[in-house]
């Protein structure tokens, strides 16, 4: 027994030494990249050996995580100035907030062949703070309307290029009653990035906003009431059962298996719906812009996943080099050669949309680009608003109160409370958050 314990202790010591040795053996130019798990990032990881070949002195280490885990993980790291990551994947929501705190290295002095002017301007604007760019967009998305061409033709309906919400409601009724499918599928799952992303564009389209110019919440306004009542009625009458638990993935599955007549969601779904391997309706998908209401302002969202280099990185030159490579024209060509043009990261560069191969392979290309180019995060509401962001409010508190409001509306959709009660609760929550945050004077 004595020997056993001694051996265990020895083994433990060995394990510790090994771990310490591993720590000190780290090369000077190893970049650790925190990335999101989505198809485009998986492809980047797969193709990254090409970068390592070009730059033999740089080695890449990948940490791939799910969105919420990633957000928590990189926020902890950057807020404590720990420097465990040299490249971080962040969204349009984080970039300006973190730049304001001085956590990010500005993306200046880029190589001339990078051709920054080729990067879509609205995407750059969404990642800038105080006129300076702080992250380079890896892929950009907006929202649009997907519909079933075959059913529309059969029922004698025509989807205009720019539909309105009144038309959408009419089509949903016909599709449900005569088409044998759910008229419309929309996000219902609570969350600031789930149902609230869509609902905020609907509120924008109806002329509403989250806060007025003196930071008073306006969720009790007629615009919100009109929007949320419309949304709840539409889904209850013509939507799938249990819509209050459907997020992007659930709706994608419903639409791809031919159960939805229409769906309004992220442009990134286009590539998935057009892929015959994943979708049973690949040859039947039509698309149009996101519907508008009293205004077209803010009716489609703008989101990008972008690569940023934190101030705490000790290898910022190498990190910047990698970020430029991953968002370059050259990288887009690499993906096209590997997976085909339909799968290239969308929305980042004008030059991608000038490629005849891309326009031919991806019939949705034109719509995606015009949706992205017309989305302006600094002017997204009919009446002026004190915040930036289209489908979100660009303040740190939004993550929390946005989700609470989302839960109330999801509850109304599930029938647990009335729309009025949900909006009243939402109004109180949002107002409290901005008072506590010191925005409201």
């Amino acid at each position, binding site marked *: 027994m004595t020997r056993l314990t001694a051996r265990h202790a020895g083994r433990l010591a060995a394990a*510790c030494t090994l771990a310490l040795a591993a720590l000190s053996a780290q090369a000077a130019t190893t970049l650790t990249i925190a990335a999101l798990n989505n198809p485009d990032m998986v492809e980047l990881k797969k193709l990254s050996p090409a970068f390592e070949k070009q730059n033999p002195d740089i080695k890449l280490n990948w940490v791939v995580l799910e969105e919420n885990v990633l957000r928590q993980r990189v926020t902890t790291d950057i807020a404590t100035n720990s420097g*465990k990551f040299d490249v971080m994947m962040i969204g349009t929501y984080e970039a300006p907030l973190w730049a304001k705190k001085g956590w990010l290295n500005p993306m200046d002095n880029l190589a001339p062949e990078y051709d920054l002017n080729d990067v879509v301007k609205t995407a750059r604007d969404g990642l800038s703070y105080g006129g300076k760019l702080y992250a380079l967009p890896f892929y950009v998305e907006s929202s649009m309307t997907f519909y079933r061409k075959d059913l529309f033709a059969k029922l004698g309906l025509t989807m205009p290029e720019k539909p309105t919400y009144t038309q959408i409601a009419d089509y949903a009724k016909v599709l449900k009653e005569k088409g044998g499918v759910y008229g419309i599928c929309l996000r219902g799952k609570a969350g600031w990035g789930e149902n609230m992303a869509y609902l905020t564009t609907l509120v924008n389209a109806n002329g509403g906003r989250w806060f007025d110019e003196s930071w008073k919440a306006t969720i009790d306004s007629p615009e919100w009431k009109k929007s949320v009542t419309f949304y709840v009625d539409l889904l209850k009458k013509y939507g799938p059962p249990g819509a209050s638990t459907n997020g992007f993935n659930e709706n994608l599955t419903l639409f791809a298996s031919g159960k939805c007549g229409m769906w309004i969601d992220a442009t990134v779904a286009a590539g998935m719906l057009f892929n015959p391997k994943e979708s049973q309706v690949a040859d039947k998908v039509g698309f149009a812009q996101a519907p508008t209401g009293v205004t077209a302002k803010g009716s489609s969202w703008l989101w990008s996943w972008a690569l940023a280099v934190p101030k705490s990185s000790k290898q910022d030159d190498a990190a910047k080099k990698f970020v430029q490579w991953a968002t370059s024209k050259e990288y887009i060509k690499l993906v096209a050669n590997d997976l085909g043009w339909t799968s290239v990261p969308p929305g980042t560069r004008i030059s991608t949309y000038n490629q005849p191969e891309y326009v031919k392979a991806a019939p949705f290309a034109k719509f995606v680009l015009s949706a992205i180019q017309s989305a302006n995060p600094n002017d997204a509401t009919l009446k002026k608003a004190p915040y930036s962001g289209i489908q979100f409010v660009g303040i740190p508190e939004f993550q929390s109160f946005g989700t609470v409001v989302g839960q109330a509306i999801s509850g109304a959709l599930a029938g647990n409370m009335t729309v009025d009660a949900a909006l009243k609760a939402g109004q109180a929550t949002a107002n409290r958050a901005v008072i506590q945050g010191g925005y409201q004077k």
Partner: protein
Amino acid sequence: MKRTASRQLQYVLTTALAWSLALLIFFPILWMMLTAFKTESQAYQLSLFFMPTLESFHEVFSRSDYVSFAANSIAISGGVTVLSLLIAIPAAYSMAFFPTNKTQKILLWMMSTKMMPSVGVLLPVYLLWKNIGLLDTVSGLIIIYTLINLPIAVWMTYTYFCEVPKEILEASRIDGASTWQEVCYLLLPMSLPGLASTALLLLILSWNEAFWSINLSSANAAPLTVFIASYSSPEGLFWAKLSAASLLAVAPIMVLGWLTQKQLVRGLTFGAVK
């Protein structure tokens, strides 16, 4: 006659209840196993009948380096088990055989450290680990897990030691055994089933711990929990791949649990009062 009939009925009922409970508890794991062998679009259907495929496993193996994650998991949970027992055994020994009037309070205080949610101390621990260079190291994770699991380890070994008759240890002391000999030749062998189950529990707890492993590791020390966390996705279908990854992650510990089932049950029910 009537009595045996009712006994039989009781027997059948309890058996049925036990089986349905077991099935209920096992169901999520069963479903995960089935989903792992489906394609992504099949994963969203509730059907039990499908053509099994290894597609997701291929994808998982080509996308991430399973072996390095698994190696970290083994090193971490092995290290935690050994280190925790090394500290817990002497602590429990002194508390079980030489109690003072503070012993019960110390035990309770130790348990109270488990009452705070982990996220409450995330930032202080993160900063501390950063400053002493333990972030993203296997040793850093071993230390934090040991700290988390120590209360359980001490409590369990303490209760097992309490079952050992004091007189036997006294007798050995009269025969001239040193403390070291007393512990190694008498106490440890006598409470071996209990210690074995403590070790197993420590192993399982540290194998499955996800919060600290995700937050304190990045690339070098990441165990299997981080491997699983990379397969969930807000945009794109992921259930089949996530299930395949999870199955690969829990398989080693499930096999271990299966093999040591007897020890585990014996240890957990060790003694007359439990």
